[in-house]
């Protein structure tokens, strides 16, 4: 015990360097753990962009492509699917709900999604959370009503009752506006941290109405134009949509139905399991994530090397301390033990302080991250993986401590009892 007491007193005597060293180790530990937490939470949050949906169906292309445009609103569909294909599967006996998705228009860089009321009821994200309206209501029978995602409303400062004009196509600067048929904001969704926040939701009828007088991708001119009021009286059943989401009455039916859709005779369709496609997509981003992890490991290594440098640098000034200890009966292994204890203690203090910093950071940043990036950082105890990392850091410190310990051992054998200044 007295050796510990000696080591602690000696450290306390050098507290300024010691504190800086501990702080460097702590920061590197915080960084490593933060990267680890964000990495695993990003993975979880990514995987929970969509939840409760059993199959995503679109025109035949690749699974990742279909997932990207239907769920992440990135890229474009290669082709549309017919409305009766949707109806065919919406009425399928194993299907309990179906959400049609019609994409292709935008508003100031945000995508417009044409869908129906089933969307607000059955679209789930995260751990099975449903969409919630922060204010207003879902769109109803009038085709020209829009429900905004949280980010859209916040970024563009839109309030209920405001009239907005949608643009044709998805370019940020659109040359062609649907300015003859403005939409009224009737609702704003609560934040989800998913692409839903960056989406404007209109009814399929609304989507049909703004394109009613369009032919081959161009708006009608002059008298051929159909006004908003007139379009309200027309049949606004869509002829085609981009994709649809299916919820089945039992998970067991998923594969059977997937095969059935992929073999559909009406037109070439592709049905994917969102979980599988998400995994595939995540593995594409895995490299960047791994690189981040490796970088933070190196930062920890740098922190430990800094500690090693500080201890080695102190050895020369502490020759007197060592010689005094030898003269009062300390054996060379006592001296070596002191130094190993020192490096382990510094690393332990760094790890503890780093953990404290991490939790402090989580408490400070969790609200912001949840709101803006949909990252939920729980205030949980370190998991097994993190304990292993921390244990590894301590072990590395212990091994590094052997170097100054060995030098001090040699030094104290060579110096003996003579006090060198």
């Amino acid at each position, binding site marked *: 015990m007295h050796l510990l007491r000696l080591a602690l007193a000696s450290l306390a005597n050098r507290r300024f360097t010691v504190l800086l060293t501990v702080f460097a180790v702590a920061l590197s530990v915080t960084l490593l753990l933060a990267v680890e937490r964000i990495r695993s939470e990003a993975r979880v949050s990514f995987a929970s962009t969509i939840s409760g949906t059993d199959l995503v169906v679109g025109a035949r292309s690749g699974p990742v492509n279909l997932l990207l445009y239907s769920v992440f609103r990135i890229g474009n569909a290669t082709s549309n699917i017919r409305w009766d294909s949707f109806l065919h599967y919406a009425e399928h006996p194993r299907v309990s709900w179906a959400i049609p998705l019609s994409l292709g228009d935008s508003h100031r860089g945000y995508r417009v999604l044409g869908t129906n009321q089933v969307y607000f009821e059955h679209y789930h994200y995260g751990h099975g959370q449903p969409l919630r309206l922060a204010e207003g209501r879902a769109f109803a029978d009038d085709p020209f009503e829009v429900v905004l995602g949280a980010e859209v409303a916040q970024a563009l400062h839109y309030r209920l009752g405001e009239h907005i004009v949608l643009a044709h196509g998805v370019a940020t600067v659109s040359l062609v506006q649907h300015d003859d048929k403005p939409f009224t904001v009737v609702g704003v969704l609560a934040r989800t941290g998913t692409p839903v926040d960056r989406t404007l939701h209109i009814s399929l009828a609304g989507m049909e109405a703004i394109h009613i007088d369009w032919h081959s991708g161009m708006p009608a001119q002059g008298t051929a134009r159909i006004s908003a009021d007139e379009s309200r009286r027309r049949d606004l059943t869509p002829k085609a949509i981009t994709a649809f989401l299916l919820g089945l009455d039992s998970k067991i039916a998923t594969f059977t139905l997937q095969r059935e859709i992929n073999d559909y005779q009406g037109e070439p369709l592709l049905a994917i399991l969102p979980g599988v496609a998400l995994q595939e997509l995540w593995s594409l981003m895995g490299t960047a994530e791994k690189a981040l992890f490796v970088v933070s490991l190196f930062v920890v290594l740098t922190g430990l090397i800094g500690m090693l440098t500080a201890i080695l640098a102190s050895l020369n000034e502490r020759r007197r301390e060592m010689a005094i*200890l*030898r*003269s*009062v009966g300390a054996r*060379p292994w006592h001296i070596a033990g002191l130094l190993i204890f020192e490096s382990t203690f510094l690393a332990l203090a760094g790890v503890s302080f780093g953990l404290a910093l991490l939790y402090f950071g989580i408490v400070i940043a969790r609200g912001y991250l949840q709101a803006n990036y949909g990252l939920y950082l729980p205030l949980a105890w370190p998991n097994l993986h993190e304990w292993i990392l921390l244990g590894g850091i301590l072990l590395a410190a212990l091994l590094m401590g052997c170097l100054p310990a060995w030098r001090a051992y040699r030094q104290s054998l060579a110096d003996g*009892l*003579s*006090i060198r200044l």
Partner: protein
Amino acid sequence: MNSLLELDGLGFAWPGQAELLDIPEFRLVRGETLFLRGPSGSGKTTLLGLLGGVQRASRGRVRLLEEDLGRLSSGARDRFRANHIGYIFQQFNLLPFLSVRENVELPCRFSRLRAAHACQRHGSVEKAAVTLLEHLGLSAELQGRRADSLSIGQQQRIAAARALIGQPELVIADEPTSALDADTREAFLQLLFGECRAAGASLLFVSHDQSLAPLFDRSLSLVELNRAHAEDHCNIL
């Protein structure tokens, strides 16, 4: 007479160098205070290293308390030193970050034997330290202070208390008074003699300050003792 320390035909040379020490015979009796005059370069530090078992003799024997140090393993020599020898150095004897009393208690932390002696005589290691420090004129108020907050004279008295705690049979003092002024020098020596006598310890006092020699039971010159140097001197002459 009961001898505590005996050197017989001792020779020592650093690897690859000429013999530095050649001492045919040397005796230190129990309870004796011996002044050993050694100018710098006379092999003084090496001799103290040999007596403390930090170095091993190239030839001959170093016997302390009937134990041949050369026959002990280096760990056993360390233990033997901790148990039976107290050291006082020229200066900077103390660990600055410990309190005065903790510094004095240090040898008892590394030697069970000395801790046992201290407990036997004073009841506890702490009481032994307090008593010794009081005898050496360091008040209770000073005992809790950091060692480096005291004057050099006080620090040397603390070092003496540390050398004496747990009654080692031999106290080796290496120029302990060279940093003190003339007035405190003699006072320090009287205190040291008194405490060595009370503890029954022999004192081997190494210094180049000949004026202190008459205060000791016996006085020797390392230059005369060491034949290796005698030859050196002849060669020079």
